[in-house]
């Protein structure tokens, strides 16, 4: 296992989750003031292909893709692509074509062990002038020259190139869409509107070209896509969350999270496990339990993170072991968040089960002065 590759990948993932975190916090704070955006409600059936497209009545929405690629000489590469659409809830009456009603944010990252580092780029723009948009009806997102398009036949085309690296990929579904939560209604807290609409497309087959130092390399591999949209994501009393997403070796997929309250304890929790046959088992908040088994204190921020975690989903016991303790990310210079996000290996009832990512937010303590 190549460490540098993993490292790069996790850095970027944490960045994305951090942005989600920021936006979510913001969304929670301002929901009360606005009635223009719609809440996420239970019992709403997702309809496709319509729900592949953008949902402008919701505050935040993202299409999120990660995957592992292989070059023709069997060298592994990691990639990650995210497009966010964010409703500013401003400029409702502004007739200007520049009126910033929606923002499009995009990230692209390429983990290349040969380069020994992560290459990544990000962009933000307001929707308008056909330069940046997220269109309803089907997945069709654009930010300047970066595009993510879903074709009629379900195949996704991604084109994200920068001056020195980039990727042009085609991602073809091999499994059905996986609806998270109650038919795509994924709760995040006690309040019913604290939820998102959420579906995943695991096991996308990838072919295409990756640009490294502006040189094209043919690649193939597999990936997974998340599409999630919401107006109020996080409870205002929430302190942070612990989240894990894992690809299991037998073809199953596990996703579990808990949202911690400011006064300790969990505000909400959730887990879903899809077996290779396609059967999904959902776990209620009481059935999901995160128990720290070892903590690590960051020498940088003095924050204490439960880097090794025991998770129980119903009867199943999962043990998460970090590849490295120090996978903390300090972005206070730019966006202000500090958290831990890192590679973990999983065991299921003490048997090796797969690989995943653990994300730990809201653990920052003030610096001792």
């Amino acid at each position, binding site marked *: 296992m190549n460490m540098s590759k993993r490292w790069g990948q996790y850095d970027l993932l944490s960045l994305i989750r951090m942005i989600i975190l920021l936006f979510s916090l913001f969304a929670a704070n301002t929901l009360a003031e606005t009635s223009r955006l719609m809440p996420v409600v239970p019992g709403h059936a997702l309809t496709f292909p319509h729900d592949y497209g953008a949902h402008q009545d919701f505050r935040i929405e993202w299409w999120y893709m990660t995957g592992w690629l292989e070059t023709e000489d069997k060298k592994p590469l990691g990639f990650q692509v995210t497009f966010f659409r964010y409703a500013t809830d401003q400029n409702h009456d502004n007739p200007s074509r*520049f009126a910033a009603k929606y923002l499009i944010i995009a990230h692209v990252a390429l983990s290349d062990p040969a380069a020994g580092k992560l290459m990544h780029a990000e962009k933000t723009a307001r929707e308008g002038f056909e330069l940046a948009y997220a269109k309803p009806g089907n997945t069709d997102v654009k930010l300047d020259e970066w595009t993510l398009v879903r074709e009629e036949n379900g195949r996704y085309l991604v084109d994200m190139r920068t001056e020195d690296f980039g990727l042009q990929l085609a991602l073809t579904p091999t499994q059905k869409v996986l609806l998270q939560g109650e038919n795509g209604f994924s709760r995040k807290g006690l309040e019913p509107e604290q939820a998102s609409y959420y579906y995943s497309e695991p096991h996308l087959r990838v072919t295409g070209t990756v640009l490294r130092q502006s040189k094209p390399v043919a690649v193939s591999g597999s990936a997974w896509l998340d599409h999630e949209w919401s107006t109020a994501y996080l409870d205002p009393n929430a302190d942070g969350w612990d989240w894990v997403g894992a690809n299991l070796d037998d073809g199953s997929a596990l996703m579990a999270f808990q949202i911690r309250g400011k006064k300790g304890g969990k505000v909400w929790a959730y887990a879903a496990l899809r077996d290779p046959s396609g059967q999904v088992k959902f776990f209620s908040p009481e059935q999901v339990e995160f128990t720290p088994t070892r903590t690590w204190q960051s020498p940088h921020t003095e924050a204490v993170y439960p880097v090794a975690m025991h998770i129980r989903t119903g009867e199943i016991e999962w043990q998460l072991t970090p590849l490295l303790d120090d996978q903390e990310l300090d972005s206070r210079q730019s966006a202000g968040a500090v958290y831990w996000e890192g590679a973990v290996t999983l065991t299921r009832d003490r048997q090796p089960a797969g690989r995943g990512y653990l994300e730990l937010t809201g653990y920052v303590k003030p610096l001792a002065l």
Partner: protein
Amino acid sequence: MKSVSLSRWLLLGEWRAHILQVIVAIMAIAIGIALGYSIHLINTAAFNEFSAASKNLSGQSDLQVHGRSAFFDESLYPMLAKYEGVALANPVLELDVVMPNKLQNRNDHKLKIVGLDMFRATQISPDLLGVPVEGKRLDGLADDAIFLSPAAMEWLQVEQGDVLSLNAGLQTITLRVAGGLVRARSGQRIAVMDIGAAQWRFQQLGLLSRIELKLKHGVNHAAFKAELTKQLGDQYLVVEVTDQETRIANMSRAYRVNLNMLALVALFTGAFLVFSTQALSVIRRRQQFAMLRVLGFTRRQLLRQIVLEGALLGMIGSLLGLGLGYAIAAMAIQFLGGDLGSNFFPGIKPSIDFNPLAALTFFLIGLGVTVLGSMAPAFEAVRAKPALALRSGSEDAALSKLSTPWFAMFCLMLAMLFTQLPPVFELPIFGYLAIALLLIGGIALMPRFAARIFTSLQNVWGAQAGAMVTLVLARLANAPNQAAIALGGILASFSLMVAMAIMVTSFRVSVDGWLTHVLPADLYVRTVSVGDQGGFQLSEQKAMAGLSGFERVDFFRTQQLRLDPGRPEIMLIARPIDSIDPRNTLPMVDDAMTPTVLPEGVTPIWVSEAMVDLYGYRPGEKVSLPIGKAADTVFNEFVVAGVWRDYGRQFGAVQMQLADYQRLTGDTSVNNLAVWLGSGATLDAAMANLRQLPFGDALEISKSRDMRALSLEIFDRSFAVTYLLEIVAVVIGLLGVGASFSAQTLARAKEFGMLRHIGVMRRQVLVMLAAEGGLLTAMGIVLGFVLGWAISLILVFIVNPQSFHWTMQLHLPWGWLTMVAVIMLVSAAMTALIAGRRAVSGNVIRAVREDW
């Protein structure tokens, strides 16, 4: 005795004995350097701050695309954003918005608001981003938020969280002060808001001021620029950062250079004074030097001694001058601003930056001038045969070499020649050289002139006049060189003062007459305009024109056009112009082409003098200008029907018939109107009527007499520094008179002693001295007047048109000149008298004995 201690002994001895002259010499050089240095410091500081602020606004782009007028359609933005080779396109809407609570200061009531897309700007002008308060990140996009620089907050007396009222067209809008800026230059008054919000709130929907481009790596800038220019056509200008810099430099160059020249004049006067002080001091000590030679002092040692003296004076004076100059500059910037109160660089606050190189340059100028001043007489003193020089009365001969008529004639001829030469880099370099040569030539010609005049006076009066008159005239006629040196200071300062006075008066009288011509109506109304859109639409025009008591209403549509990326915008003024005789409307310079001569089917325009100088427009010529409907070809052909005088806009202005403008552009909005009241209507009633209109609050109504008064006030303020320099020149000149007279009278102690011996009363000697001083000064004044008049001709007819591109008529301020002449005459005579009292108060016997 060792030569070093001898040298020190000689120096200290001399300085102790003539401490006053030493002080005067040091002061003269210090004042000259101080003025030159302080003006240099102020100008540099103002210019640097101005360009830094402009650069701060335009960011780190590779290229900028501008329209021909201030705004263009936003559809260019997506096109450029997708253009091959463009890495980033940053759209900008820049507005100068009138602040309603600052209206009382008509010249300084605008806030620059930059409308930005923060996501695009972050890579090109990150300093200009607004800083919202914690948790209000989206304020950067809000349609009601504005971010202010610290200077703007201070100016407007608001803080984060306050509400700010601004005039947008005919409405008043309120915005929320959402925070500060990432980084604004100290004193820079700017505001930033979201571009979409700015377009909407200030009624500029669909418009941009410019698009800044960052190119991809490896794109050839020059080739890209050429390609894009071709692609975009004449409608747009593709501008590089260097063009921007040229444009900024062009904007203020004439102003800066002229101030620098004035400072050089002060330096020149100071230098002349130092020269005369040094020369006289060396001449006075000819016998002392001859004695040293006889005692074994070598020529080289002597030369070194004299030059060392001069160098020491120069060093002390220059150092003092640098300190003084720095202090003056700091004070001037503190109290008057970087443009010395002329409002040339609004919205910035410069701070002085000490540049060692500039300081060294000014120090060397001061030192060099002083050393040169001592060199000429030193060489003469060294070359003189000791035996001859030991004798009394040889002083005048010593100076004769300084006054060869050929040199003077050569200077004057060259000056004449220079007046005929064109400007260099659009600056009147040769004009200023001609002034310097006129001064040098005039002063060099002085001794001959003095000799000639006083000899003829002697011939006329000598026989019948009394002994005293004979003595005075004989002295002046036969020792013309010493007289000339005394005169030189007066001549230099008085002639410069006369020149400046004539120039300023000519300018002021011309401006006054021009104002009467261009402001013929009773009232002028304008919208508190935003950007470049005409604020009054047809309905509002109708409402205003229909008010009672108005006999005639003229509408004006003004707009800025950019013809050359390296130059500031020109002003287009469309208004009704008397087509039978344009002179009734415009202050024409020459006879305008009569309408019958104008070619058929071509729209006439009348251009300001600057257009002729800067863009080469000639009457009768056909030119093409970017005035037209934006949709089709923007350029239209016009014929230059005449040239008018414009003291308001030195970068150029074009006037055309409003009807022609509306026909070509389809734009029926106007910005200003001129109102003539009918009989019986009062100004106040008319203003009240206007105020009662629904949009009355947004109107800026000015009485034409107030506008005239204000314009003249601004004029006077701009020239305040000129008056200051004139006074300094006069003081330096008087110091020169005092210094040279006291030096001369001391040197002539023997002569006075002899006169006392042969029975001349002490009082008579004093009268003689006063008469000498008075006569000399009178001649200096007459000659100074002639010289000053000649210089003023250069200033009025060469320097001004070449730097500011406007002409004026010559007007002489007789009263003021007479007054100054009398003051100078009296003070020179008094100075001579006071200096003389010392010479005749000594022991008569000793004074006579000294020589024998």
